[in-house]
């Protein structure tokens, strides 16, 4: 149960920064008039953010990751999420074991 003061302040700083980012989008919505243009931009946020997060893994991490991403994407067209994720994880594990 040790708690160092410096570490506690560092944790609080991280928490404050994170809360700030998570709340500010909602605050912005209150102060910005909605129009067609902004609606189109907001609709594009989910795919744009998700792609930005995974792109380095999908295209620049190695063949195992790229092929496993492709396998996951194909599986996702037919199978439920859990199955698709299992297929992705199994693919990457097999390909890494094979030395890719």
């Amino acid at each position: 149960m040790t708690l160092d003061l410096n570490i506690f302040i560092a944790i609080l700083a991280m928490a404050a920064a994170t809360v700030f980012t998570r709340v500010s989008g909602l605050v912005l919505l209150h102060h910005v008039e909605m129009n067609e243009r902004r609606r189109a931009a907001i609709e594009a946020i989910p795919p744009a953010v998700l792609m930005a997060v995974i792109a380095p893994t999908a295209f620049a991490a190695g063949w195992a990751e790229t092929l496993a991403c492709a396998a996951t994407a194909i599986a996702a067209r037919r199978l439920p999420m859990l199955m698709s994720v299992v297929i992705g994880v199994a693919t990457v594990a097999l390909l890494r074991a094979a030395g890719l």
Partner: protein
Amino acid sequence: MLQHSRPSGDFFAGMRAIFPLVVAVLPIGLVFGAVAATKGLSPFETTLMSALVFAGGSQFVAMDIWTHPASWIGVGFAALLVNIRHVLMSASIGTKMQSFSGVKRYVAMLFLADELWAMAEFRAGATRLTPAWYAGIVTPFYLTWVGSSLTGALLGAFFGNPTVVGLDFAFPAVFIVLVMGFWKGPETGAVLAASGAASVAVHHFVPGVWYIAAGALAGLATALWQHRAREQAA
């Protein structure tokens, strides 16, 4: 059917929906706890960080740049940078919270981790997003993250490298499944292409986590550009 669902039914439906991600976050939390232990954080400090920050990406980055004594400016600024995408995420999901009271919206935002946000966006696309359903995805995910961080901190280096069994790939895999679900035609394809290209390029040339913001903004710019082109054509 879903319009008449009771809050408790929605809560359990949320718990069922988040189950795969709870399974996936468990080993990540264990690894985080173990890494934090090697950096000299006590199990209590590690648990406190997971409970108060609740943002895996920025917590791992903080461990990467951790110093003794801890630098609050360094890790605070890093958290701001890593989590800047949450501004966009919160603005987007905020437009889909008609069932939430004003206070509930702000409380919900405090738990806006990537995985929970993505699941909520996906839900909002299919049916009405309710506070009970959102609480159903947050509760098990939050408790698992905090609990597995504590367990990892206590057991320390007992946990090996999760890349061997491919578990590190669980989150990219989930995100791919979700991206496929947001597909609405060629216009989505252009947003994805712009975001992916900008992300990979910035990831390659710029150290740090700027690639996420760069990719997200490139995708947004593409959507705005498409919108203007449609308006001019009309």
